[in-house]
């Protein structure tokens, strides 16, 4: 493979595609709950431990998963360590070929997998399909990049010496994944580790074990050697065991800030007998602002802001949660946003007309409600969707908050729900200062039609991904390398050219080629 092309998303505007997806979901429902085993060394162990449920109908069990024990974690890590040498010695081309075959498996099952993400995570169709595509992209992109990386970079060469630099897999990688991109993120972190020659212990989110099993199956069907990947469904303690294990070399984590910081802290400790420093690749969410200058085209701003703030109910680390609007257009934009908010349909993820699906679980909803209530108590004015669906789903009314005090949680905390704080500012300068005052720096947006304003904001923004005149979500592999700075993460860029470097150790070899004055 010489050139990477993003997997095409489905053309959902064609009825035939929608019908195929609906049929795949019906088939999934007909099959009933999926049993998700712990898989170590190719061996499956299953006893019903915990369930994942449909967030839109929590009575419906989507998967029953085995709860991996600490002893099983130890077995998995030991097995991975034993497999590390052979896997590292496998040429990058061969590793990439396995990943490409796994991508083919996902492609073959794409309707079913999108349906699974709809059911297990209440991810709306367009976003569920994009999740499948991104999973395919990560497998192909990292495979290709690893082949390129294996060649090593050019070094300066002088007569009488030969210098080479090679990158090699570090050893066991622990991948601790979230539920919000239940396919793309676990496979992305795993594919990066696998492509560069590291065995992987994958601990998926407890909310989405069935999606993780599908990923395991794809790699298994692709011919990945059994010891190289283990699937370890479970709750937080499985991750904690992995992080603390002395044979784990690299920890790739995407999730909350609290857990991420804890991982970094614990990974820094060197256990007795441990002969390496653990490396962390940590992606921890954001508090993302979109700036709207006075010369912005509000016709573009309104739909882009709604999609960025409320798409997938705001449950993306890239989601916008603050809107900093030039005061000259603030009233007009507020009026249009409030009107547009009323058009947002809250409903089940499986309905193609749904704009805002339910949140992942009851605790998320309660926290979001608390933050909104506190904003209102602090003087913020609320605009909320009134019409809410019936049933037990974890639905949450999309909310605009105007005039919240600067210290309000709605302005300072990541919410991971469909809540947007709208704040007038005197100009772009003030907006940049507010963004600068934040601890998070993941994504940001600017709407302006002045190229000089774009350049000025790009030059000073702390965020990892700045989006100009468009929404702030939907980064594409190879096109928008994704990842944040400051407390949003340690600056790694998923889907970018340098991501793989976090999973390898560099080794430089310098040979004296002079023998009795003769240099070849």
């Amino acid at each position: 493979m010489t050139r990477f092309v993003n997997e095409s998303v489905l053309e959902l505007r064609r009825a035939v595609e929608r019908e195929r997806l609906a049929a795949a979901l019906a088939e999934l429902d007909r099959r009933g709950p999926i049993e998700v085993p712990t898989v170590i060394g190719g061996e499956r162990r299953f006893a019903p431990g915990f369930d994942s449920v449909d967030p839109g109908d929590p009575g419906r069990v989507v998967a029953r998963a085995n709860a991996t024990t600490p002893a099983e974690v130890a077995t998995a890590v030991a097995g991975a360590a034993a497999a590390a040498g052979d896997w590292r010695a496998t040429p990058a081309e061969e590793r990439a070929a396995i990943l490409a075959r796994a991508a083919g498996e996902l492609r073959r099952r794409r309707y079913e997998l999108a349906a699974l993400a709809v059911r297990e995570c209440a991810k709306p169709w367009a976003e569920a399909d994009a999740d499948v595509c991104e999973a395919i992209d990560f497998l192909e992109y990292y495979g290709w990049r690893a082949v390129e990386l294996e060649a090593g970079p050019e070094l300066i060469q002088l007569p009488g010496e030969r210098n080479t630099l090679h990158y090699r897999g570090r050893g066991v990688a622990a991948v601790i994944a979230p539920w919000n991109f239940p396919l793309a993120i676990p496979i992305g972190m795993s594919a990066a580790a696998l492509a560069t020659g590291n065995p992987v212990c994958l601990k998926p989110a407890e909310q989405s074990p069935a999606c993780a099993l599908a990923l395991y199956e794809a790699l298994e069907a692709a011919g990945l050697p059994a010891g190289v990947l283990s699937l370890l469904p479970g709750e937080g303690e499985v991750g904690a065991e992995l992080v603390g294990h002395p044979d784990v070399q690299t920890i790739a984590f995407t999730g909350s800030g609290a857990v991420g910081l804890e991982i970094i802290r614990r990974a820094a400790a060197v256990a007795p007998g441990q002969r390496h420093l653990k490396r962390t690749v940590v992606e921890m969410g954001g508090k993302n602002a979109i700036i709207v200058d006075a010369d912005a085209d509000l016709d573009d701003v309104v739909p882009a802001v709604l999609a960025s703030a409320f798409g997938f109910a705001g449950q993306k680390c890239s989601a916008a949660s603050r809107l900093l609007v030039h005061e000259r257009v603030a009233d007009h934009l507020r009026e249009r946003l409030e009107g547009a908010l009323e058009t947002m349909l809250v409903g089940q993820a499986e309905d193609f007309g749904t704009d805002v699906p339910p949140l992942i679980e009851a605790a998320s909803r309660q926290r979001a409600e608390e933050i909104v209530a506190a904003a209102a108590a602090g003087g913020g004015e609320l605009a909320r969707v009134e019409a809410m669906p019936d049933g037990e789903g974890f639905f949450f009314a999309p909310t605009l908050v105007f005039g919240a005090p600067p210290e309000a949680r709605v302005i300072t905390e990541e919410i991971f729900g469909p809540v947007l704080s709208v704040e007038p500012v005197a100009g772009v300068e003030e907006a940049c200062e507010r963004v600068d005052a934040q601890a998070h720096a993941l994504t940001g947006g600017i709407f302006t039609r002045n190229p000089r304003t774009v350049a000025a904001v790009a030059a000073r923004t702390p965020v990892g991904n700045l989006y100009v005149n468009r929404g702030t979500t939907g980064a594409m592999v190879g096109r928008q390398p994704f990842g944040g700075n400051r407390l949003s993460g340690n600056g790694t860029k998923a889907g970018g050219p340098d991501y793989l470097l976090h999973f390898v150790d560099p080794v430089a070899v310098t040979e004296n080629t002079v023998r009795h004055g003769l240099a070849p």
Partner: protein
Amino acid sequence: MLELGRRLGRRRASAAAVKRAANDRTMALVAADPELRAALFRLVDVAPACRGNEELRAHLAAYLEGIEDPGPLASFGSRAIDSRALGRASGGVAATMVRQMAKRFIVGETIVDAARPIERIWRDGATVTVDLLGEATVTEEEGRAYARRCDEALVELSRHAAGWADRPAVEADSIGPIPRVNLSVKVTALTPLVRAAAPERGRADAVGRLRELMRRAAGLGAHLHVDMESMDSREMILDLVLDLLAEPEFAAGPSLGLVLQAYLRDSEEMLERILARAAAAERSVPLTIRLVKGAYWDHETIEAAQHGWAPPVWTDKADSDRCFERLTRRLLDSYPLVRTAIASHNLRSVAYAAAYAEQIGLGPADFEIQVLRGLGDDLQEAVVEAGLRCRVYCPVGDMVSGMAYLVRRLLENTSNASFLASRASGSDLDALLGRP
């Protein structure tokens, strides 16, 4: 056909035509440089959002940064960058230029403003369809407001049209009378709920408003023409209109129209669907179909490329032109089941339609040619002189809402492949009239 085409093409002697030609040359000069063209479009686009000339100047300066030879834009552009005083003046010149451009394409800010220019078109022997420009509809209130404006426009236009002199040549064909009042409506402006993956939402929201407009049009004896936009709304609009057409209350009116975009690869399939439904509807007033090449080519192409889709449009312009001619034949052959409006500024396409109509025995009033205000003015004069019915698409609206329309038109006018650009650059007429 060639003879007819040459006749239409050579006839450009009027004083207005000479002035327009000068404008076209300036435009062609700007359009020749892609960077300059982009700068000009961005300036036109941002103009209504700028407060005062100083802001406009600042934008222009930013757009021209790094362009080596700003050519015709230099007078109010790069030279002014260093001088604040001159800068303000240059902002003023730019604002005037944008206003003039808007005036060329937009017939008035309101129906009242537009009444006189529209009547002038009528006096000149052509007729019009009015399009109400507006901001994108993102709220229900905006959808309601657009429907209200359409309703008022129908009433207001009817009032004005009653006073127009009789022009039998453009008021009837072999089937019967053709309404004087003709309003083009956009379904995406009637509802904020257009969702590509959920056509039922937009449809459910728009159907009531469109039905009311149809009732109003029927009451006034006016024609309502539903515009087509991008692929994201096409199926919804098509189904909506075809279903309304079949409602018994509309069996006797109003005169209703749809748009067929020849640049779509599946446009012939679509036409068959429309014809089948039109035949089944058993209405006493025939459906009108406006045949266009399509105005969203760049949008469709970019969207398809970004998503990895096969483009829904022909990527070779000659394919669009050939498809246009196949559709022309099929449409004219379907008279009187449907009335056909050929909306193109391509002389070959227009001459082809006229020649084919004559060949199959249709009278000169049994189809019409449509042109865009500001772009097809020369053609309008020629078509009228040739004794054919010419309808001028006249946008009405303010600067803010008109900019998206204006930029699309400018894009079209300056596209390298466009007939107008070729004509302005002096390409041989017979070559342009050749088979696509």
